[in-house]
């Protein structure tokens, strides 16, 4: 994220490449701890187009907003929209940002350049109230249309607001006991904005969503004069893997438009994260993608360690333990994904149960090392929470060298050549490589479309540059390839695990002490890992205080959904379920 970036040069004064290319429109960000450039709002679209076309930054990883707010009028008061871009051929990030006033936050939309910005801009509008001019469908995405205010803004307070940051004083030192429901008795636990009449409330959410669904399906040319039908799959539907809804517009059985509706599990994770101290966030990351908590820990730990610097560099043994845990997580996640994709195909529970038998054994290992099967909370800044318990390494070795290869092969034999799987999967939901990159798809979805992009290889973190493994790629971009790529990845993970288990050294597992309060210097950092579901990024901004100023999660499940409509249009209604299953989402991460 630093040295490889062509635009960032060590000497302070000579203009950077970007500054030379766009005189007046771009200037370097000179705040301490920040990188990248500040772009004039009016020129943003032009600059972004040039950066994409001339410099080859074709993968928009993350778009998010940060609220710089101070109550004093002379303090800094603006909203910043930060863009993180990468090349799909690998390398470090290019960061640019725009700054707009808080009361008139209007930014040109980049959806026409990067369709992958679609949901992310909607999220920034929803949570920060940044208007993206030119966005084709700027609706709220996680909250509902009637919601008052934009909750991530620093001056927004929820009803029964306690304090800005934890620890809350009435727990310590005052020590008062009360139940949450005593504080928020039913009937009195809501507050309405001024002049709002709950009785007369008219829902605007669904009508607007249907309107947009109709707009996006207008291109469809009808050969026979039939009426189009709208069907809602979900929010309570066994195939949606949680509370997720797809509004589907159909012509006969053919999909002409699809809008995902989400947010049913929204808990404003990022706001909670900004109330928490740095350390407190670690167990909360477990609850994002609860099937792969170790990977989430990894991403967050990396982001914070990057900001702290050398003082938090994990020792050798901790790095190996981290890699072992992350790869075990990947295997268990993919086993789950494969099993439940088959469920979506109608093979009820036999493949799923065969797959999660093996996952169960991996969870046993997590339980013995981290203390919990799913909510691991195992990583710390500068290492891991505790050393591997005695006797666990042989157990992992047995699994990795003996049982898992055998069982994955069995799963492969059981399913991969099955004619039903192939006929339901081949040629269904095809995504071309260009589309996959443009829509910011990540992980297995991207690689199944023939783009060999894996953060572990493209922008290596931790000690992944030491291991030999292939970046798996499949060429067809259909559901079957997205299934096969997960089997391939399990084999690669097993290979990494074998190497890591061979080389793991003895030694310390923490760099120094493990303090309950960490000092994080002011600045920003973006830490990303190749999670099982794709690129998982954490964008954090510190002001040097005990808690993050901004804590943003680039959730792969959420952003991979941007491409769902593209996948499904032109297919049959039965394929929607399979397409969704092949993306492999977890709603804890989608809704955050």
């Amino acid at each position, binding site marked *: 994220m630093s040295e490889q970036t062509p635009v960032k040069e060590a000497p302070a004064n000579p203009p950077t490449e970007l500054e030379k290319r766009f005189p007046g429109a771009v200037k370097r960000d000179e705040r301490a701890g920040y990188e990248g450039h500040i772009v004039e709002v009016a020129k943003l679209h032009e600059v972004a187009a040039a950066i994409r076309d001339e410099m080859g930054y074709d993968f928009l990883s993350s778009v998010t907003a940060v609220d710089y707010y101070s109550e004093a009028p002379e303090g800094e008061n603006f909203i910043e929209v930060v863009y993180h871009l990468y090349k799909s051929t690998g390398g470090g990030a290019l960061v640019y940002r725009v700054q707009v006033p808080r009361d008139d936050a209007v930014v040109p939309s980049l959806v026409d350049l990067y369709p992958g910005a679609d949901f992310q801009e909607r999220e920034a509008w929803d949570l920060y109230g940044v208007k993206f001019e030119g966005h084709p469908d700027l609706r709220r995405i996680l909250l509902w249309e009637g919601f008052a205010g934009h909750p991530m803004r620093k001056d927004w307070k929820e009803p029964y607001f306690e304090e800005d940051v934890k620890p809350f004083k009435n727990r310590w*030192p005052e020590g008062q006991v009360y139940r949450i429901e005593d504080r928020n008795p039913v009937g009195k636990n809501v507050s309405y904005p001024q002049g709002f009449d709950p009785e007369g409330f008219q829902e605007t959410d669904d009508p607007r969503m249907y309107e947009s669904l109709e707009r996006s399906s207008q291109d469809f040319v009808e050969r026979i004069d039939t009426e189009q039908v709208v069907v809602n799959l979900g929010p309570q539907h066994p195939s949606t893997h949680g509370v997720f809804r797809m509004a589907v517009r159909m012509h006969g059985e053919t999909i002409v438009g699809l809008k995902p509706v989400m947010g049913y599990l929204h808990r404003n994770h990022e706001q909670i994260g900004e109330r928490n101290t740095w350390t407190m*966030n670690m*167990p909360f990351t477990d609850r994002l993608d609860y099937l792969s908590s170790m990977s989430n820990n990894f991403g967050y730990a990396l982001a914070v360690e990057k900001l702290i610097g050398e003082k938090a560099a994990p020792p050798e043994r901790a790095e190996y333990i981290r890699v072992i845990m992350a790869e075990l997580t990947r295997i268990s996640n993919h086993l789950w994904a494969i099993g439940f994709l088959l469920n979506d195909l109608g093979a009820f529970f036999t493949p799923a149960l065969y797959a999660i038998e093996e996952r*169960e054994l991996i969870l046993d290992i997590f339980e*013995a090392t981290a203390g919990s099967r799913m909510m691991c909370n195992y990583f710390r800044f500068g290492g891991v929470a505790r050393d591997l318990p005695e006797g666990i390494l042989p157990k992992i070795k047995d699994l990795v060298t003996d*049982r898992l290869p055998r069982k994955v092969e069995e799963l492969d034999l059981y399913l991969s050549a099955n004619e039903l799987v192939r006929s339901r999967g081949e040629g269904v939901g095809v995504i071309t490589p260009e589309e996959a990159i443009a829509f910011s798809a990540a992980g297995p979805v991207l690689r199944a479309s023939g783009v060999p992009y894996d953060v572990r290889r493209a922008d290596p973190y931790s000690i992944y540059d030491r291991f030999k493994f292939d970046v798996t790629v499949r060429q067809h971009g259909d559901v079957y390839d997205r299934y096969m790529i997960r089997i391939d990845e399990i084999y690669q993970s097993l290979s990494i695990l074998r190497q890591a288990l061979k080389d793991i050294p003895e030694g310390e597992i923490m760099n120094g002490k493990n303090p*309950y309060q960490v000092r994080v210097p002011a600045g920003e950092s973006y830490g990303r890992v190749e999670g099982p579901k794709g690129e998982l990024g954490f964008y954090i901004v510190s002001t040097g205080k005990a808690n993050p100023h901004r804590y943003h999660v680039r959730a792969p499940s959420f952003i991979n959904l941007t491409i769902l409509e593209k996948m499904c249009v032109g297919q049959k209604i039965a394929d929607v379920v399979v397409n969704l299953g092949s993306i492999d989402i977890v709603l804890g991460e989608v809704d955050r």
Partner: protein
Amino acid sequence: MYGIGILKGLWVTLVHFVETFTEDFRWIGKKRYYSEEGVAARRSKDAKGIFTVQYPEEKLPVPEEFRFIPFLVYEVDEEGNKHDRCTSCGICAKVCPPQCIWIVRTEDPVTKRPVPEPVDFFIDVDICMNCGYCAEYCPFDAIKMDHDYELASYDRHAEHIYNKEKLSKPVEYYASIRPANYTREEAIKAAEEAKKAEAAAAKAAAAAATAQASGGEQAAS
């Protein structure tokens, strides 16, 4: 030929089906179900056949690091008095991510200085997220994570805020559920004690030496 893939797949399921019976036959005379070694065999790398565990008749073994709901450790002295290890320093309450710990401190009525042991200690177990931070960061090894995961009760209002009485467990219990951790902590404590004693001894010796040296000097002069 079309259908070969399906037949191969069906073969896999058939093998799984038959294995459930062959495994049971192999265990004739030994207890495959409702016994510890049976459960262990079903969770091993060579496990075949029936994989599941019949809870609550059978239970999975709980590894030492398993964490669920904290408890407070107390020690009993020779006279039979309970002493909390807790000094109510409040680090657990400060580090708790969902803020579910409340500590009631008190001060000595005569000296007006804070009494180290807490008057009461509350944990709302409905809010506790079992992250284990309180145990991890406690400098006095006074709060530890439990192994008991069966907490169901009939009245969450009356029973789900644990007070000090309900949270307190003897140090022997802690030693029994986490023997490796307990031994390690005790060893560290013993080493620290020894170091302290050594330092004190060294100090005394040094003092004696200076006294002697000054005595010697005096003698020399």
